[in-house]
C-alpha cells in the first residue's frame, strides 16, 4: 500500500534540509519557493530515504492570485507518494524553474503546461507549444482567457506564415 506522505510531513523534511525553502504546507501538499525548487527536487530524488525517482505528474493550475505547478512524486523504491508545489505570482509572465534536469520525464508535461497556461519553465531545453499551433494567441487554460488584450478572438487569426496575418497576442511574445 502506498504511503501518501502528507504535505506537512514533507515540509518538515524539506525544512530540515533547506531551511527557508518551504513557502506553505497543507495536508495535501507542500509549497516550495521557486528559487530553491530544483535543489529540493534534486534532494528528494537523490536522498536514499526519500528516493522519489518517479515524477508521476506535473500540472499547472491557475489559482487566479498566482499560478502554481504541482509535482506528484512517487518513490518506487519505498512505495511512497508526495505532492510538491511551486508558485509563480506574476500573472503576466509566470516563471518557474524547470524540473527537466531532475526528471527528463517532465519535458512533455512542462511543454503542455506552457502551452495551455503560459507558465515559463526556465531551463527547459525545448519549451515550445505542444498541442496548439505556434502562433496561437493566449493560453486557453488561464481563467481570464476570454479577455484577451485587444479584443482578440482566439482561433481566428492563427497559422504562422499565413499571408497577411500579423501575429499578436500573448502567445507570441
Amino acid at each position, binding site marked *: *500500500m*502506498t504511503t501518501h506522505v502528507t504535505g506537512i510531513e514533507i515540509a518538515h523534511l524539506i525544512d530540515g534540509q533547506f531551511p527557508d525553502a518551504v513557502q506553505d504546507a497543507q495536508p*495535501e*501538499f507542500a509549497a516550495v519557493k521557486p528559487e530553491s525548487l530544483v535543489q529540493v527536487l534534486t534532494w528528494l530524488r537523490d536522498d536514499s530515504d526519500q528516493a522519489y*525517482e*518517479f*515524477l*508521476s*505528474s506535473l*500540472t499547472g*493550475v*491557475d489559482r487566479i492570485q498566482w499560478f502554481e505547478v*504541482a509535482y*506528484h512524486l512517487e518513490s*518506487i523504491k519505498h*512505495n511512497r*507518494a508526495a*505532492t510538491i508545489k511551486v508558485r509563480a505570482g506574476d500573472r503576466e509572465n509566470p516563471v518557474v524553474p524547470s524540473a527537466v534536469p531532475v*526528471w*527528463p*520525464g*517532465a*519535458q*512533455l*508535461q512542462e511543454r*503542455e503546461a506552457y502551452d*495551455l497556461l503560459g507558465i515559463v519553465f526556465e531551463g527547459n531545453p525545448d519549451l515550445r*507549444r*505542444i*498541442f*496548439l*499551433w505556434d502562433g496561437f494567441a493566449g493560453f*486557453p*487554460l488561464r481563467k481570464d*482567457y476570454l479577455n484577451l488584450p485587444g479584443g482578440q478572438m482566439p482561433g481566428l487569426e492563427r497559422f504562422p506564415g499565413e499571408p497577411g496575418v500579423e501575429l499578436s497576442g500573448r502567445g507570441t511574445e
Partner: protein
Amino acid sequence: MTIKSEPFVVNVGPQHPSTHGVFRLRLTLDGEKIIDADMVMGYLHRSMEKLAEERTYTQNIPFTDRTDYVASMTGNLAYVMAVEKLMGIEVPERAQFLRTIMAELQRIASHSMALGIFANDCGAWQTPVMHMFRDREKILDLFEMACGARLTLNYMRIGGVSRDIPDEWIPQAQKLMEDLPKRFAEYEDLLLHNEIIVARARGVGVLTPEQAMAHSVSGPMLRGSGVAWDVRKADPYAAYDKIDFDIAVGTNGDVYDRFVVRLAEMRQSLHIIEQALEVMPGGPVHERLGTATVQPGGQSIAPLAFRPPVGEAYARIESPRGELGYYIVSDGGPSPFRFHIRAPSFINLTPLKLMAIGATVADAIVILGSVDFVVGEVDR
C-alpha cells in the same frame, strides 16, 4: 574516409498508417538511420481540460471515455475515483468488484489490440489484428450487456457504477474466460515465438530501468524495463487488495519485452476476473449521494450537480497504457476548478527520441507501436 549522406527529413504522419491516429513524427535520417526525432502532436486536441471546467462533475464522465477511447472503462474509473477521493465517498463492495472486473476486461481488450497492431506495424498484414478483434469483440459484447455501449462506455458513476450487470452476464463472462487461455497460447505461439517478430523486436528501443523511471514511463513499458511497479499492487484501489495476482515484468527493456509483459498481463487479468466473479458479493452497486435517486428497474443515477468541498485530489490507477491519473482541484463549485489528466500515452512518449535515435525507420515504427499510445489520450 566515411561516406555520409545528407540528412533527410521525413514526416511520418499526421496521416500515416502507423501513427495510430493523427500524430506526426518528424524523423531526420542519415540513410535509413534516425539521427533526430521530433514529435508533433495536437491534431486531436479537443481542449478537454478546459471544457471540463464548464461542466458538472457528473457531466464530465463522458469526456473520460473519449480520452483513451480504446480503454474507456479505465478512464471512467480513474476520474470517478478522483472525485470520490475529493468528496470522501465510500463505494459499495459490489461496485468495487464490478469496477475491477470491467477494468480487467478492458485491459484484455486493449492489450489484445495493442498486440495485434504491433504485429501490423511489423508488417503482418492485418491478420493478427483481425484475430485479436475476434476476442475484443466478445469483450465488447459483455460491455454492451452491462451498460449498453461498446466503445465509449460511460459505465462508472461517482459513488459506484451506473447499473448492475444482468443475470446472464456472469455465465457469458465465464464462458469467455474458458475460451481465452487457448487464444492467448495461440497468440504467444504465432506472434511472440515468430522468428521474424523476435528479430524485429529484440534489442530494439531499449530503455534501462533508470531511464524509464527518469522519463516517467509507466505501465507495460516500465515493467518491460524490469521495474516491478503496478499501481494495482502498489496502491490497491477498487477490489484489487482482495484478489491474488502477480505483476509481470520483463528483463531486457526492449520492444519485445513490452509485449511479453502485455501478454502475461492479459493472463493475469483473466486470473483476476475469475477470482472476482467468484467472490463478488451482492448488494447495491451505487452509493447514494445527496439527492441521488434510484429509478425503477434498479438503475441508480448520480445527481447531476453537487458541490464537493474545497480541496484537491489526485487519483491514479493502472490503465492498460500505464499510470492514469486525474488531478482535480475544487473551489467548492459545481464544476471542477482544474481538471487535469495525467495521460500515460502522452507521458510514455517522452523517451521516444531516446529510443529512436540510432534505430532505423522500420524500428521507429515498431517502437512507436510498443508505446501503444492512443492519440485521443495524447492530445486530449
